[in-house]
């Protein structure tokens, strides 16, 4: 429609030059339309794919939810023999390991990013930056094997006995750090995850810190502010949207990480007050048990775990959006 209208003046003008120009414009218009169509197709394709994943997850998990009802989410039992399943232990494990990872990775990641953009000597900037980015490129199975063979024995021999002894007589902490030093467990998984999400937080924070106009920083320094004050009152407020984006990307990885966690978490469908005790996560349970899961309810329960992880990730992303919207409003 718009095309035929647009063609009108071209048809009216009968000179050769005008005709040539019209033809060229036409060609550009078609190619532009094709490009627009392709980008739209790609974007809609993702939506379609996501819809397909949701549909198959819901359909696959239907038998489990039919059998156990909403109690599936709050039950701790996981017994393939009697076919009684509940998702509470994997959900707790997923949230606990991700929380530990973020508590460690976010402050350290932001500090590294700030050091790299503001304080680091030029000569060191590239090597440290590259090293951080390389961490992101290491496959998760390598982290898993390294965690199992190197990191866990190290924790077991040198760190955990010391932690257990230190907190032995302090209430609450004695529960959180209770138990035999297995080396592997929820805390080890959280630490490995922290190393894995660190590059995401660092790389994105560094990029957004770099985007702060130098004039602003220089002006603040000029007013006599300390480095910490510049960081807290100028750089962070200016870049918080980007930083939160990086944190959320890291959190997304921590929630879904499978192989590295499977190796070091101890894979026990139990909830323990101690973070040194073995636990399990949603993705680790699926990876461990899916291949040999016999029977409809068992398979369906594992798919239901996948659906729950999907929902958790969605809630986290939605919460992040809400938080950002709140921040934007606060600014105005």
């Amino acid at each position, binding site marked *: 429609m718009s095309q035929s209208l647009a063609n009108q003046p071209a048809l009216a003008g009968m000179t050769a030059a005008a005709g040539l120009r019209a033809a060229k414009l036409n060609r550009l218009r078609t190619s532009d339309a094709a490009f627009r169509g392709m980008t739209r197709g790609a974007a809609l394709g993702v939506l379609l794919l996501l819809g397909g994943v949701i549909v198959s997850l819901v359909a696959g998990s239907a038998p489990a939810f039919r059998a156990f009802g909403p109690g599936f989410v709050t039950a701790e039992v996981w017994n*393939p023999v009697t076919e009684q399943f509940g998702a509470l232990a994997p959900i707790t494990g997923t949230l606990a390991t991700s929380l530990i990872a973020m508590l460690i990775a976010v402050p350290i990641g932001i500090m590294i990013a700030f050091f790299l953009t503001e304080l680091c000597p030029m000569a060191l900037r590239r090597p440290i930056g590259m090293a951080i980015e390389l961490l992101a490129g290491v496959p998760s199975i390598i982290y898993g094997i390294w965690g*199992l*063979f190197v990191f866990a024995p190290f924790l077991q021999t040198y760190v955990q006995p010391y932690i257990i002894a230190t907190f032995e007589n302090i209430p609450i902490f004695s529960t959180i750090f209770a138990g035999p030093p297995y080396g592997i467990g929820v805390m080890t998984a959280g630490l490995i995850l922290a190393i894995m999400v660190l590059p995401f937080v660092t790389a994105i924070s560094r990029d957004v810190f770099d985007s702060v106009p130098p004039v602003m920083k220089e002006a603040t320094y000029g007013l006599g502010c300390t480095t910490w004050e510049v960081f807290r009152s100028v750089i962070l407020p200016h870049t918080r949207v980007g930083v939160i984006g990086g944190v959320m990307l890291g959190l997304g990885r921590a929630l879904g990480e499978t192989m590295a966690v499977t190796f070091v978490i101890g894979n026990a469908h139990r909830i323990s007050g101690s973070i040194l005790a*073995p636990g399990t996560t949603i993705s680790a349970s699926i*990876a*461990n048990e899916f*291949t*040999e899961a016999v029977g409809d309810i068992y*398979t369906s329960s594992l798919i239901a775990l996948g659906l729950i992880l999907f929902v958790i990730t969605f809630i986290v992303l939605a919460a992040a959006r809400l938080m950002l919207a709140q921040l934007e409003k606060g600014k105005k």
Partner: protein
Amino acid sequence: MKFSKIFLIAATLAATSAGAMAADISGAGATFPYPIYAKWADAYKKETGIGLNYQSIGSGGGIKQIKAKTVTFGASDAPLPGKELDETGLAQFPMVMGAIVPVVNLDGIKPGELVLDGATIAKLYLGEIKKWDDAAIAKLNPGVKLPSTAVALVYRSDGSGTTYNFTYYLSDVSAEWKAKVGTNTAVQWPAGIGAKGNEGVSVNVAQTKGALGYVEYAYAKQNNLTFTKMINKAGKTVMPGSASIQAAAANADWHSQPGYGVILANQPGDSSWPMTAATWILVYKNPSDASAVREALKFFSWAYAKGPKMAEDLDYVPMPKTVSADVHKMWVSEIKDSSGKPVFALTN
């Protein structure tokens, strides 16, 4: 002249493409026998030119795939019950055996030095025995100095035939285990930590003083793990090994279960290793593609006849001759094509 030539070329092409189609035997299932199936397949291909496409996706996956008829045979570490075999029209037979051995990490204890029995292992895994110098263990090991270390239990976190056979054995010897935990490829463990695969279990056992785990015999042997001896059903102390594993198979009554579905745990016989395990093959009794099943059976027949040496090299244990002869007879009498003729003839 010209026409006949074209016809000849066409016929040759058709023949080769038909040959190529029949060339690969397709199967899927258990991971435990994968190394030996791969080795047999390699040797078989050199001899006959027919290859095997085996996906080791796990027993559960193998059962699903054969039921969906996407493969010619399925492979499982846990036998299907007779009822399920009848409903699906599947024939089942054992292909090769292995064993499960307990492994420990105790100061001053060498491989094959410690003796355990089923009831004690069940109590250990139930968390009832907490220290290695417990009276129940000391009674089985007079003269062995047992440390007062806490027992750290390690189990397979991934669903596996090894866990199935191990928990089957514990259910068989301990009523308490049967009531509280039961038998499956994965169970609700009352205590301990889960590690992925044989390698995960052995690493965790190696790293933790006082650890107890269970792994496949081949894995324990090749990695020099500290395995234990066991007291079998006859009350005799036995070492894990090819002889004791084969003794368990020889003493088993293979016809007591449909589809040779006898779990070799806790078999009678003075020299039988109590935690022996077989792995099974599943094919349709009335296959829609009889020629594919014929090729598969030819391969299995060849493996029974020429495979034992290779199996032993990889620390698997071949099926006794009596069993393989019996399986051949079952093929002839039960696996038929659409016209009712046996798919497999004993002469080929």
